[in-house]
């Protein structure tokens, strides 16, 4: 029990005394997972919307692929990226192995199917009459798409939260492609593992506390946006 209190105390000391190493780890975590979620949105949202709204041959197959991707084990993503980017791999010449970029790539592979999948499910829930109504009011294709995207805004936020949750808590892939290098590719999760391996349990607990606080803050912000948007959305539909 002592060690837990000691760890929580240590967390506050590390945060408020501005411990350089801890801040570096925290900022790298935000940078890597933030970029990964951002890129995953750029990839996942359009894919989810386009696949969800259109009917075409092979759609079911594609949806099944995306749904499988939602459950893609992070270590599989890690191994796959490793094989592509290590020196002898197809993209070896980019020299991405053991860099934060490699971690972002692996995380994008994990998060984008989650974002695409949830978005896809959400846009399929949109009342099909909305589209016809928009068309009958004289909207062109792009305007129809815009209306539909606006309708899918709330579930898209949920998709982003799920994607963020998927990557911020991940260790297997980032340790494989990042190498857990101190000061360069060590994020909160892999630093925690390293501290446990080194027997530094108080610091490990401190890092976990910081990770939880970070996850909570990000989700709180996204939830606030979602709930605010949600109440506007409800008011508008009641009108």
């Amino acid at each position, binding site marked *: 029990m002592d060690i837990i209190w000691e760890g929580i105390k240590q967390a506050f000391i590390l945060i408020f005394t501005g411990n350089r190493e801890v801040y570096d780890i925290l900022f790298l975590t935000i940078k890597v997972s933030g970029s990964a979620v951002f890129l995953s949105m750029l990839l996942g949202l359009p894919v989810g919307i386009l696949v969800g709204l259109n009917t075409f041959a092979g759609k079911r197959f594609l949806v099944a692929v995306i749904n499988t991707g939602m459950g893609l084990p992070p270590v599989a993503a890690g191994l796959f990226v490793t094989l*592509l980017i290590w020196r002898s791999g197809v993209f070896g010449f980019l020299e991405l192995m053991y860099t934060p970029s490699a971690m972002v790539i692996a995380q994008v592979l994990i998060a984008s199917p989650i974002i695409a999948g949830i978005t896809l499910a959400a846009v399929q829930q949109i009342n099909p009459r909305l589209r016809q109504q928009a068309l009958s009011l004289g909207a062109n294709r792009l305007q129809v798409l815009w209306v539909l995207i606006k309708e899918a805004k709330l579930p898209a936020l949920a998709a982003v939260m799920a994607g963020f949750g998927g990557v911020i808590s991940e260790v297997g892939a980032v340790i494989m492609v990042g*190498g857990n290098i101190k000061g360069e590719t060590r994020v909160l999760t892999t630093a925690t593992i390293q501290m446990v391996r*080194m027997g530094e*349990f108080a610091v490990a607990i401190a890092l976990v506390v910081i990770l939880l606080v970070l996850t909570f803050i990000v989700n709180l912000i996204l939830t606030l946006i979602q709930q605010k948007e949600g109440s506007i959305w409800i008011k508008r539909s009641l009108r």
Partner: protein
Amino acid sequence: MVIFTSVILLISSIFLGISCKAETKDAEIILATTTSTYDSGLLDVLLPVFEEEYGYEIKPIAVGTGEAIAMGERGEADVILVHSRASEDKFIEDGYGTERFDVMHNDFVVIGPEEDPAGIIGLGASEAYIRIAETGSPFVSRGDNSGTNKKELIIWENAGVTPEGDWYLETGQGMGATLRIADEKSAYTMSDRGTFLSQEENLILIVLVQDDGILFNPYGIIPVDPETHPGLGINYEGAMELVEFITGAEGQDIIRKFGMEKFGQPLFYPDVIKK
């Protein structure tokens, strides 16, 4: 899937910019090493000094000796720092490394619960292993093809015992994690002395067998041969400078002093400049 990843790779590299890496291209050295050099904290004091003085950026990848050697064989690392003499010699014979250099040594210890159910205290390592197997006392192995794991298997072989059965557990993890598992299970295990000392305060296990010749644990550093892996951009020059530093007066001195303050005894003994 491949197309998808390629798209991701492309977009990511545009976003993150290949610009930030270009300048450090030749100044970067990938060092594949064992978890013991890393988890003990030695590399944290050794490498910054080298980076500062020689102007390189080191990327230490702490795996196990088995994986470190495999990384060298594939040309994914520029230099390896490991501890498994037989594998190291084979690595050079097969043409993957140019030359092996002595760095330091410590020794392995067999540890276990104070009650010592198999009664191995003070025995030689092989006799101790025979007793553990005979009594079916729980023994935790790293089982990860690391230098420590290889040494453990040599001792089993020497003892004429095939380690298998309910009592023999393989963790597949590094020394730190394996020590914790052995501790929770009140089991026997073998550890390099450095990692054991650095974790001792968190453990109830104690040293039962030590000072046996078979437990000697030398570490070697080997630059990866760039000619075996043309086109992979192996930083041989950087690797040689690291060798020069680690086997030189300054590196050896850091190794000698490491751990004295915290543990009251060194965790590693330098082998080149002994003083």
